[in-house]
């Protein structure tokens, strides 16, 4: 739909919020880059002209669109009361696909960078108490959560593990919380004792965990008796999935255009949609970021993402075509 009239150009006030472009991203500038631990840098990002950035809540992440074409998610770890900057911390991952190495080696103060989001799949919900469990760079979303829990007068404690003390970021910033914070460097202390930490928590405690996949798996295994929704996990790596529901091909119908696509069992629905010119944005391509979310109008998806919980999966109303497939012969999408 085209709208012809434009607002009174002369007197139009300057925007007060950095505007999000058609790509769903804003162009920000790196205004600070400091090492905060061995192999970890903290970045501050601001809009040119000092405009406000979109608001966020603790647990939110942004997508960094790197000039080398990669997109990476990073939790916001700054102060949401400061509307003009985002802060993230990036760990150099030697075995990664080059995203973090680019940030460490090439991204400099003054550079522009595309940012998408913020989005929050890891919101802080009300609780009697919080137990925050962080592994390594998983500390980043916990920092604003801790501030917020304090503001809400909700008691909390933090269990923070890392490989070595010098590789653990923000230890100085946590020092003021005294013995609410337990630091657990693996080289001197061994693995986190999750079982006793979790056992010591009363039933009204909500447990927030972010870190490497083995830590998430370990915390899941000691929380099986906890009520639904009391363990909250942030995944930056995809969850292990069982075998696909169907081994034969299926059809995907785009409801708005009537196009029907035939999909082979091993094909990615996202690729097929892109080839058909459907307007789907993607970022992680692993079912963890939520960028490619698509509405399902009919049919039953075979969910293979790491985002939806069981109840959300059963609703059959949305799915992530970068990893998910169809369980039914045809899947009708709102595209």
């Amino acid at each position: 739909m085209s709208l012809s009239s434009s607002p009174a150009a002369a007197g139009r006030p300057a925007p007060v919020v950095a505007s999000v472009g058609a790509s769903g991203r804003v162009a920000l500038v790196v205004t600070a880059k400091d090492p905060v631990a061995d192999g970890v840098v903290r970045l501050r990002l601001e809009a040119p002209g000092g405009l406000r950035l979109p608001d966020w809540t603790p647990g939110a992440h942004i997508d960094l669109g790197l000039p080398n074409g990669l997109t990476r998610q990073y939790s916001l770890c700054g102060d949401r009361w400061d509307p003009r900057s985002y802060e993230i911390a990036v760990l150099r991952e030697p075995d990664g696909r080059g995203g973090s190495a680019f940030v460490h080696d090439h991204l400099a103060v003054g550079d522009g960078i595309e940012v998408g989001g913020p989005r929050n799949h890891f919101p802080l919900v009300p609780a009697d108490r919080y137990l925050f469990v962080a592994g390594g760079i998983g500390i980043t979303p916990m920092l604003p959560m801790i501030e917020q829990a304090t503001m809400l007068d909700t008691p909390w404690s933090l269990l923070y593990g890392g490989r070595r003390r010098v590789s653990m970021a923000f230890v100085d910033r946590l020092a003021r919380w005294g013995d609410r914070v337990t630091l657990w460097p693996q080289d001197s202390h061994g693995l986190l004792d999750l079982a006793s930490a979790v056992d010591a928590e009363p039933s009204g405690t909500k447990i927030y965990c972010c870190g490497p996949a083995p830590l998430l798996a370990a915390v899941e295994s000691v929380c099986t008796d906890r009520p639904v929704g009391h363990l909250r996990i942030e995944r930056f790596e995809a969850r292990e999935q069982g075998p696909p529901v169907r081994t034969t091909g299926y059809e995907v119908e785009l409801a708005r255009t009537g196009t029907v696509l035939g999909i082979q069992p091993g094909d990615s629905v996202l690729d097929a949609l892109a080839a058909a010119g459907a307007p789907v944005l993607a970022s992680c391509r692993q079912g963890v970021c939520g960028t490619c979310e698509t509405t399902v109008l009919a049919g039953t998806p075979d969910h293979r993402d790491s985002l939806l919980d069981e109840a959300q999966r059963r609703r059959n109303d949305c799915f992530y075509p970068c990893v998910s497939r169809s369980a039914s012969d045809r899947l009708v999408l709102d595209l």
Partner: protein
Amino acid sequence: MSLATPDPTVEAPALDVDPFGPEILADPIPFHERLRAAGPVVHLPRYDVYAMGRYAEVHAALVDWQRFQSAAGVGLSNFRSEKPWRPPSLLLETDPPHHDAPRHVLEPILNPRALRALRPRWETAAEELVEDLLERERFDAVSNLAERFPLRVFPDAVGIPEEGRENLLPYGDHLFNAFGPVNALVEKGLPRIAGVSGWVNEQCRREVLSADGFGARIWEASDCGDITAEQAPLVVRSLLSAGVDTTVHALGAVMAGFLSSPEQWERLRAEPARARVAFDEAIRWESPVQTFFRTATCDVRVGDVVVPEGRKILMFLGSANNDPSRWERPEEFDLDRDPSGHVGFGMGIHQCVGQHVARMEAECVLHALARRVKKIEPDGIPVRHLNNTLRGFSSLPARLVAR
């Protein structure tokens, strides 16, 4: 955050008027012009509050929740020193961090994707409504349309029982009056309000709500701990408080737009896909929610004036939406305009969470009308309904010509 600097500051210009008096409520436009001309922020000695009416400042303040808080109440009464007449809304009358969890729960329940399932039912309801109007030929666009449609579909969507729904309009009307001073409009509502608000609170209980509505979804969110069981009924209450009168007056506004500009009706008939634009344009043009207060969390500089910490500021959304420095010919209801950026739903973290519900209601009604109706003509004098916060009509007599 920029605090007041020791630069020279000036007193805010004073406007000695009562913006909640019947004359201004009946026709706020001349007052809005004075307000915008007087400066970016003015002082209203009558209530000893500040006020803003220009688009740029109103927009900037609405998104700046850090310095313009809602938790001290979005009405005249300052919750820092006065006790609210009802427990504060967990959405409207809170700021982060308390605002986050309820908002996070409500957003996915009311987003366009979640609403899609309701659409076929609402389309049928809209068609029935239009058939009925065509049979009457002469009708009142307020009582027979703007009130009737939301009262038919919205309480069902929330999941409250049939009985007692007549309480919803007086509840909403009083609630929006109560954001203003205790004047005759508020006093008029007082005798009934205890009973009416008791009924509303009763509908927010889990046992009362049907299993498939928004209300049940809110309670489900408390099962997995996204909000507490104490918060759930208050979140349901927000839907019942904010979702009826506002939509009624917004539908009234879009009908008033077509009644006063018949060529715009031609425009819609020619291109029914403009229904959404028409609705948002009506909200810009008429601004059913005219005002909300904010409270300064620190000394805030606006232009050359410093608004001291703790003081209330009245945001004139309707004035911002008609500011000629933002909109060309703002007084015209124009389907060719891009109304995006209007502040009729608010802006920022408090922007109306139910806006997609209202838009879908309006779209269903306008599509059904555009399909069946050739002309909509005025058939008598429109009568304004006065409310301290809302702008709308109590009567819009009209006549239809079928296609």
